[in-house]
């Protein structure tokens, strides 16, 4: 690393991308309009489960200003493919995941409220919406399937899919785990529910599709997190378009959190119809549509048993999970509760035997897929709740119970019982730091003080591990993944020494324009202002996999670093030629190529110019130009970890849980921009606090989503939080050049169990031992009332 660069690696540089956003000059998909564009509006099912008897479009199609009304029949007749699943797993009996068809417009059956039945295209949104009201769909209703626990015995949702079960998967050694339980001194059991969430990126999904009939090509502006993945799926599987004829542009995107990974029906329909009508077509979801049809998150029921030996060491863990995947298999619905969940069940702990069985269930609800953390928050929730439940049962301090079960820092690399090999970690360091930050020792004094004020005060810990940067691709493939999970970068040096970096990742709030530029500026010894990051346009960037799973820095950043290394290596050869020195004598430091031990040197800018004006150039060895590409396929996941601690106060009169303090210490490996990392931690915590205290997607027994607006789905607000204390410890990742691990999901993974542990701790003097998420005032108040009633009996 270069020294003395205030803008380099490790500096909290203010973000390059901010100015456009704070002045209102961001360019989001809905800000884009095209001459002659039409507007699309979708007729959605208002019943959860039904056969479509007829779709009468006559009145709608006849309305002034309506260009077309399309139904599932039109789509099917045109040979349009359905949405696909990007990862499947084998069943316990060796058979394959059941992958029912997922048409982009329903033809025979609807399977959730919000399912797409028809598409109306008109010259204004108001007209399209009014015409949609005139589309008359006749349904023969079937029973809704809403309850996850009984879904297996409910009405069949997909023809020929027995027990509404998409898959029945296992991981770990069942016999060894049973053996551990037979030898256990204590067995701790619990049923733990992970509540269903709706991601709610603030920018609703949107698309503007254009077809050029002269070039027979398309441009699709989309709110996607991964433009190339979108292009691949829409071209190869849905619309049968050559990839080279499709440009996907993801301009500024207003948050994603997983929900914008997938190709959705609407953008496929708009693209298809843009050719039919030879007019640009725009569609933007309103918030109600977002609630109904964005992929939801979480929604698991877990039966968990933990076995402890005489020394309070965990010797076995068994987890049986029902995962609600909704009406159709979304792209990464299968991997989320399996390989991103079962593999995380060892957490930070040395657990010799683990076995898990996960059944992926269909219900007549919206598809469920990856949401910030994707499987890892669900695994962490059950494990970290179990750590507290077990500690309480054996009468041990939950921090100490964690400590004695941590994988010791000298045990790395550590092979878990659930397939992962952790490269490095030190779990005690962040635990100790977080305990110190929140003054854990002083807690009982604070509890007593709160009690005097009539409040129940509680403290809760969560020590988590996450697995980021899913890789390597060969392993992903062996585990059922249908994608590679490398990342790409092109580093293009201009003749005047400025640099453009083209990355396959996509920034929708993460600050890549700044973080990635810091890496390049640092390595090349040039000003940050001389580096531009380009992302989000398939016609400009190399084929890349996009942004999710906290992968962008660990995988995409490393690809950039490797491309920069290639630039430096080429630059050394050019410089050696110009300085008449041997390649091996060349050094690159602080932006200068120098002959070691001499004062002979060439600046980065001089070498850049020479590469493009190659008058004095080693033509016998090199091609002109200074532009390098790297595709980086990691050797392993990265494993961030840490401890989060929540402190709450509960008002027994109202049941309101007030979060009064939060301290966390995370190990993300090396930090490129601590300010941006801290922002990611804050945001992740807020989403986890939302899950634990406020948010819940609720369907009634008829499959109607009762929480389909911000009036009913409680989003976290500013006054739900105290100031958050954030700190770090560092063990550098051992297998990428930057020693980085990823930070985007940590807060959302760590925080829900910390909060629920704190709520249960607060109520423990009353004898309360569990609380389901969200810990709403009503639930907490009832728990207090029930406990007091019991005590009085």
């Amino acid at each position, binding site marked *: 690393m270069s020294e003395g660069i205030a803008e380099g690696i490790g500096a909290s540089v203010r973000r390059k991308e901010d100015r456009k956003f*704070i002045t209102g000059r961001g360019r989001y998909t809905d800000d884009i309009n095209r001459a002659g564009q039409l507007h699309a509006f979708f007729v959605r099912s208002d019943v959860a489960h039904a056969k479509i008897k007829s779709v009468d479009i006559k009145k709608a199609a006849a309305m002034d200003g309506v260009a077309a009304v399309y139904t599932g029949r039109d789509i099917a007749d045109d040979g349009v493919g359905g949405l696909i699943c990007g990862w499947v797993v084998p069943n316990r009996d060796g058979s394959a995941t059941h992958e029912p068809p997922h048409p982009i417009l329903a033809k025979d059956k609807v399977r959730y409220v919000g399912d797409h039945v028809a598409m109306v295209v008109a010259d204004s949104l108001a007209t399209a919406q009014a015409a949609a009201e005139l589309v008359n769909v006749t349904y023969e209703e079937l029973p809704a399937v809403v309850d996850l626990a009984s879904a297996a015995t409910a009405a069949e949702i997909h023809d020929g899919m027995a027990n509404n079960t998409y898959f029945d998967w296992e991981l770990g050694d069942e016999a060894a785990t049973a053996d551990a339980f037979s030898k256990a001194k204590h067995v701790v059991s619990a049923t733990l529910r992970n509540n269903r969430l709706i991601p709610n990126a603030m920018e609703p999904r949107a698309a503007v599709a254009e077809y050029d009939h002269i070039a027979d090509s398309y441009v699709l502006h989309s709110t996607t997190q991964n433009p190339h993945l979108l292009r691949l799926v829409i071209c190869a599987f849905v619309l049968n378009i050559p990839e080279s004829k499709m440009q996907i542009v993801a301009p500024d995107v207003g948050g994603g959190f997983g929900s914008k990974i997938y190709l959705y029906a609407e953008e496929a329909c708009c693209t298809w119809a843009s050719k039919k009508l030879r007019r640009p077509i725009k569609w933007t979801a309103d918030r109600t549509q977002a609630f109904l049809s964005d992929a939801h998150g979480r929604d698991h029921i877990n039966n968990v048993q933990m076995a402890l030996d005489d020394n309070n060491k965990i010797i076995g863990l068994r987890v049986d999970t029902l995962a609600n995947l909704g009406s159709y298999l979304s792209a990464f619905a299968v991997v989320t509760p399996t390989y991103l969940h079962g593999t995380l069940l060892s957490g930070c702990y040395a657990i010799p035997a683990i076995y898990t069985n996960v059944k992926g269930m269909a219900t007549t609800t919206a598809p469920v897929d990856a949401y910030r953390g994707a499987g890892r928050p669900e695994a962490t929730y059950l494990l970290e709740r179990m750590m507290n439940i077990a500690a309480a049962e054996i009468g041990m301090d939950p921090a100490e119970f964690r400590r004695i079960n941590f994988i010791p820092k000298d045990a790395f690399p550590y092979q878990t019982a659930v397939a992962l090999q952790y490269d490095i970690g030190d779990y005690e360091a962040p635990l100790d730091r977080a305990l110190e930050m929140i003054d854990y020792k002083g807690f009982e004094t604070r509890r007593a003080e709160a009690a005097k004020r009539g409040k129940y005060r509680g403290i809760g810990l969560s020590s988590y591990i996450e697995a980021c940067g899913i890789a390597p691709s060969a392993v992903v493939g062996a585990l059922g993944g249908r994608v590679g999970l490398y990342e790409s970068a092109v580093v293009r040096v201009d003749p005047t020494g400025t640099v453009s970096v083209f990355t396959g990742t996509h920034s929708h709030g993460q600050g890549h324009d700044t973080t990635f530029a810091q890496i390049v500026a640092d390595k090349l010894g040039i000003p940050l202002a001389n580096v531009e990051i380009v992302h989000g346009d398939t016609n400009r960037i190399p084929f890349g996999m996009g942004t999710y799973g906290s992968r962008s820095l660990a995988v995409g950043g490393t690809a950039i670093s490797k491309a920069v290394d290639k630039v430096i290596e080429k630059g050394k050869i050019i410089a050696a030629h110009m300085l008449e020195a041997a390649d091996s004598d060349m050094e690159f430091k602080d932006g200068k190529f120098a002959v070691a031990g001499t004062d002979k040197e060439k600046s980065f800018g001089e070498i850049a110019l020479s590469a493009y004006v190659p008058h004095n150039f080693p033509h016998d060895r090199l091609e002109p130009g200074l532009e390098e590409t790297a595709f980086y396929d990691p050797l392993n996941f990265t494993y961030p970890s840490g401890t989060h601690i929540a402190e709450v106060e509960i008002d027994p009169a109202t049941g309101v849980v007030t979060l009064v303090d939060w301290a966390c210490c995370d190990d993300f490996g090396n930090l490129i921009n601590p300010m941006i990392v801290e922002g990611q931690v804050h945001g992740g915590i807020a989403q986890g606090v939302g899950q634990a205290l406020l948010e819940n997607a609720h369907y009634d027994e008829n499959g109607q989503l009762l929480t389909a607006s911000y009036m009913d789905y409680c989003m976290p607000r500013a*006054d739900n939080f105290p100031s958050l204390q954030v700190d770090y410890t560092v063990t550098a990742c051992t297998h990428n050049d930057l020693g980085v691990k990823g930070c985007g999901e940590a807060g959302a993974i760590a925080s829900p169990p910390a909060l629920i542990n704190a709520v249960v701790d607060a109520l423990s003097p009353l004898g309360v031992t569990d609380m389901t998420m969200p810990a709403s005032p009503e639930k907490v108040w009832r728990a207090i009332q029930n406990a007091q009633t019991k005590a009085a009996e």
Partner: protein
Amino acid sequence: MPTVSMKVNGQSVSHDVADNTLLVTFLRETLGLTGTHIGCDTSQCGACVIHVNGASVKSCTMLAAQANGADVTTIEGIANGDELHPMQQAFHENHGLQCGFCTPGMIMSAIELVETNKKLSEQDIREGLEGNICRCTGYHNIVKSVQDAAQKMGG
């Protein structure tokens, strides 16, 4: 269609619009001022907050016609040329934004909050921003930004 006239960011504008045109639609579609965003359909999220005659207003909750004759300021109109408004500068300095979608509404709400209240406590700011939802930042750095701007604005 009635004619609606108002001053937007210091410039007089006059357009014929349908009766049911929302102010936010007028700003975004008719005037092309796309800095004001639409994040919900129930007046909860605050992405569309602008100033009408100096007061912060959710522009999705007002008809364009209701703003006839009004003095309207949007996110595009608060900087003084290249010199950012102290609230914009504070959001930049304190990393008070991530994806940027809620940011214009958040900044407009925060400006009015600071301009109409002296000596805001942290809790006052948190409660004052209750009508603006951010999904990225956890509000921590937004609150810091508003505190910072309040100092610079003499609040």
